[in-house]
């Protein structure tokens, strides 16, 4: 693996957003001089430090891609500030600002008879850099596909090529839009390891996903977007504590069954699903903060010592719906996943469809 250090002091704020607002504008063919304001992102505050991975989660249409594109300069924000290492992106200028950024868009469908080597050489030329792309292709696991036509590559290989494009020039901020889509579990694990290595080398990384479970495996902090607004933001523990949405423990077994949660410590609630003491039983344990491995071990030992036999232990992650419901105060049914034109609309007060 050949990952270059960004030369950035670990922990320093690499990217900061304050009050960033952007809304799409649509032309109305009947009234060509007017633009219709559509969905977007509203008043987003965010800070990503060098060496950390931020997970951006939210349902479809919540504004994750819009936010990533706004940071990348593809959308021009109307309000707020985007700063790279404390410097405003407008002051840095387009070319200098873009050198800080690497973007991996969602599911790039690379096609044609070009090869990964040619694609990288072209992007390198755009960046004005002349390093050999071989090392980069090795880093993303495409070293033996350097001259394979794009048409002959699988979706997983295409994802790796997109990552290689994002890594060109060793950018200090890496924006990855649903990077694990299309990757098999083995490739996903390798991908997560690679991201951690990049972060350890000083890169600030933002990864978007709608899968909370896969995020918890490798991110340092979480930002939850819903209808274009940030509804929760912080480290995993902070978000868990704030929303009370930590993972539950599902335990199943035979023999003795604990009658209540009292023996598992304060703040633990218990839901017995198959209450057949003396035979088979199954229950879940929940607490505002996730159980760590020591606590899990203690719980299992206490059951076994009392005569119970554990058959199954599973960590149950909350669904995105549950998290959003907790974050917005709406019910899981209301918060829904229905996506429409006004999907990014307001929990706060702004209106879609107003004319300018």
């Amino acid at each position: 693996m050949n990952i270059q250090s960004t030369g950035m002091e670990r922990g320093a704020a690499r990217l900061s957003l304050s009050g960033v607002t952007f809304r799409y504008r649509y032309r109305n063919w009947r009234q060509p001089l007017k633009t219709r304001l559509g969905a977007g992102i509203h008043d987003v505050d965010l800070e990503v430090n060098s060496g950390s991975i931020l997970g951006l989660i939210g349902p479809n249409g919540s504004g994750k891609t819009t936010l990533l594109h706004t940071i990348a300069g593809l959308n021009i924000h109307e309000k707020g500030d985007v700063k790279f290492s404390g410097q405003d992106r407008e002051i840095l200028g387009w070319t200098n600002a873009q050198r800080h950024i690497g973007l991996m868009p969602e599911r790039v469908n690379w096609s044609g008879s070009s090869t990964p080597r040619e694609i990288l050489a072209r992007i390198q030329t755009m960046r004005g850099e002349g390093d050999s792309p071989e090392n980069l292709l090795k880093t993303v696991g495409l070293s033996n596909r350097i001259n394979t036509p794009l048409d002959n590559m699988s979706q997983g290989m295409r994802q790796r090529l997109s990552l290689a494009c994002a890594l060109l020039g060793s950018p200090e901020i890496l924006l990855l839009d649903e990077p694990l889509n299309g990757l098999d579990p083995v490739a996903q694990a390798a991908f997560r390891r690679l991201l951690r290595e990049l972060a350890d080398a000083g890169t600030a990384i933002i990864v978007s996903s709608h899968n909370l479970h896969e995020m918890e495996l490798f991110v340092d902090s979480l930002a939850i977007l819903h209808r274009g607004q940030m509804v929760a933001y912080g480290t995993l523990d902070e978000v868990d504590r704030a929303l009370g949405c930590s993972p539950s423990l599902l335990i199943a077994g035979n023999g003795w069954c604990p009658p209540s949660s009292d023996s598992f410590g304060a703040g633990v609630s218990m839901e017995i699903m198959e209450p057949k003491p003396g035979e088979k039983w199954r229950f879940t344990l929940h607490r505002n903060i996730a159980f760590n491995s020591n606590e899990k071990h203690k719980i299992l030992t206490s059951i076994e010592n009392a005569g119970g036999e554990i058959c199954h232990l599973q960590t149950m992650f909350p669904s995105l719906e549950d998290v959003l419901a907790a974050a917005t105060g709406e019910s899981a049914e209301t918060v829904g996943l229905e996506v429409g034109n006004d999907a990014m609309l307001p929990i706060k007060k702004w209106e879609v469809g107003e004319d300018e």
Partner: protein
Amino acid sequence: MSRLSREKRILRLSWFEARQHFKSPRMIALIALLVLFIGGGSWGLSDPSSQVTAQLQIDSAYEVLFLVSLFVLFSSTLGVVLLGFDGISRKRLTGELAIELIQPIDRIDLARSQLQGLWLAVFLPTAIACAIGTMLIEAQMDDWPTIGEFVYFMIPTGLVIFWYACIQLLASSVAKDLGSSVTLGVGVWMLFTLVWLLITAVLAAFIGVDVTDLESVEYDHFSEMVDLFSPNGVYQLLLEDGLDNESAPQLKTAYIWLAAIAWSVIPSALFVRRFKTLKP
């Protein structure tokens, strides 16, 4: 970045773009078109035993080249449509456009490289086909066009390919899906190549020019004026301007070149302007 290295970077990117087109299966269709139209046209029109129409007197190799320009117009501009109709929209649909647009390069430079790449991909095979056509003419007529005549023929040919490249990429940048790209690309080509004659006749009738005699001086002059608004028309006028006095257009050379400059500047400026605000 110095001016020289900037130009060098644009040229390298243009070459990457052109090479992608050269390797695409569509290039086979373009080469077939060029061989059939330019090669076939040069061979057939220069055959001393053939009589195209009673009105056409072919006396020199340049006059054959001039007639071959009709086939160049048909095949090369169709080639630009073939290669360029989805030049931007395909990248947008696949997601490649987002990767290109975030790179630390001026959008104007990126737009220029797209334009030059498409132009190069069509102009190079066209120039080769024209050179081979000239050899075929020599084989049939035992007469070469002068180097000056050949260069004079290739300049408007390069220009008309450039104009179509601008129009196609502009249309492709507007289109949001492949269907719209095809419709816009082929539609614009059909407008200037097939429908323009009809538009000219309708306009002439509308303003009172006699359209029952298409050979009349009045109609001829009117159609030349209307042709200034069509890339094909300007191409033909530029080439006619190189013929002897009898066949030369009635319009002043300056007007024709002014129209050529306008066709070179306006669509390319519109494309660059559109590219600067392009969203993936």
